[in-house]
């Protein structure tokens, strides 16, 4: 517990690291070789410099739009310059040269569904681990390092148990 903080105080990540907004912006040297979480490291500077949260995502939107427009333009050009002579034979689905038998949408095996469920578990797990991974220093600084560390330890162990269960249960077998 740092001095001047009461037990139970709720603070955000930046609170333990007071922002010095009067510092001249000259000191932003992205080529400096400091660990990201140390004093003057990337994270600190990023909080200071980058109040352009929406600016960043505006760029993403611009990029997305220009990408979509480029593709649309290419498709339109292709539509103009490419010949179009549809025929019944061309429009049949490809089935290695013979007449298609039955519909196109066959049933697929239930096994695929199990993998989708498992994927959900593990990908969501990764999403939970990421925020933890970037804030270990913060938890350490408010004196909770050990607790949070063991919580994540237990979390990963439970997930390993889940995977072991799935393997032993045989849902991942593919015969």
């Amino acid at each position, binding site marked *: 517990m740092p001095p001047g903080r009461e037990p139970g105080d709720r603070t955000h990540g930046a609170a333990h690291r007071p922002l010095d907004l009067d510092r001249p912006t000259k000191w932003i040297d*992205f*080529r*400096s*070789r400091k*660990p*990201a*979480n140390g004093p003057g490291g*990337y*994270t600190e500077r*990023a909080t200071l410099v*980058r109040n352009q949260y929406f600016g960043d995502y*505006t*760029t*993403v939107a*611009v*990029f*997305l739009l*220009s*990408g*979509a427009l480029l593709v649309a333009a290419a498709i339109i*050009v292709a539509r103009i*310059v*490419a*010949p*179009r*002579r*549809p025929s019944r034979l*061309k*429009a*049949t*689905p*490809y*089935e*290695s040269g013979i007449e298609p038998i039955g*519909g*196109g949408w*066959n049933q*697929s095996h239930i096994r*695929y569904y199990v993998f*989708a469920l*498992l*994927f959900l578990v*593990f*990908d969501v797990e*990764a999403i939970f*681990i*990421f925020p933890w991974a*970037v804030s*270990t220093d913060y938890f*350490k600084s408010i004196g909770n*390092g*050990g607790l949070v*560390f*063991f919580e994540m*330890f237990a979390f*990963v162990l439970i997930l*390993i148990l889940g995977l072991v269960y799935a*393997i032993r249960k045989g849902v*991942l077998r*593919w015969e």
Partner: protein
Amino acid sequence: MEDFIVAAVKTVIAFALLFTVVLLLVWIERRIVAFMQNRLGPTRAGPLGILQTLADGMKLLFKESMTPDRVEVWLYLAAPIMALVPAVLIFLVVPIGAPITIGGTEYTLQVTDLNVGVLYVLAMSSMAVYAIALAGWSSGSKYPLLGSVRSAAQMISYEAAMGLALVPVIMFNGTTSLAGIVEAQGATYFGFLPAWNIVLLPSFVVFVIAMFAETNRAPFDLVEAEQEIVGGFHTEYSGFRFALFFLAEYINLFNMSALTVVFFLGGWQGPVFGPTVLQWILPVIYFFAKTFAIVFLFIWVRGTLPRMRYDQLMGFGWKRLIPVSLAWIILAMIAVGIRRFGLPWA
């Protein structure tokens, strides 16, 4: 306004760069695979055949795009766009060089630096699954459907492994921003060994293997296993729509190589010296040299390894890669804890 101009200029440069690189990439791959198989590959269009991809692209542009009569039209037309756009979007956060300062203003060689870069990258690479699943399903034909179901299962399996492989990297560097990750790798061990994240070797190996599966490349190219399911999800696509899938595949290949470099090989970091201009150019050269080394790895593997069987693929993903990543996360947790706190529970 100035910000907007900078963003616009960066967008234009990024697109130009990406498409040029892809044109080169297809040619490089065809040449190298050809040499590995004791042939010459394309040699006619342009010097050494370097314009072959451009010629192929032009040819596809002038070919008829057929629409079979059983397709779900809107999804069928949207799928190629959904394949290409997320592929392009990943490049947005890749830093290709050290920031440069012109007239007191600093410009990063990266379209934009999102503070949730890693999550953004994972999200965008998941989007590729939609394109492939929808393309296969909306074609209303058997081979594409089989290909897309296979592909969806394969990609989500290896995506989980990929996400888990990145956790130790984030723990080590303490940030999810790609620029931050590259910067944190600028230190050295003992004064001469670069502190690249490749020291997290299990993560690196898992990430590279997952990367092969994510981009549907050999030895995990079951999605388009010609001998079994013809072209897989793009069997019913022709003309320029097919070209879009092709383009997306190669953009993904380049992006994934670039991301490997950013996460594990120090990004643009390397010895810098000489006049200012050289100091701007050298990091870019390092970045592209490393990226093309990874691209060469991709091609090398394609030229060497046979395709895996489907049960081997799924078994390997779930019973090897994911348990290894989980165990490695726990080890890395302990290592990071000791390095940063003395002892994790202190």
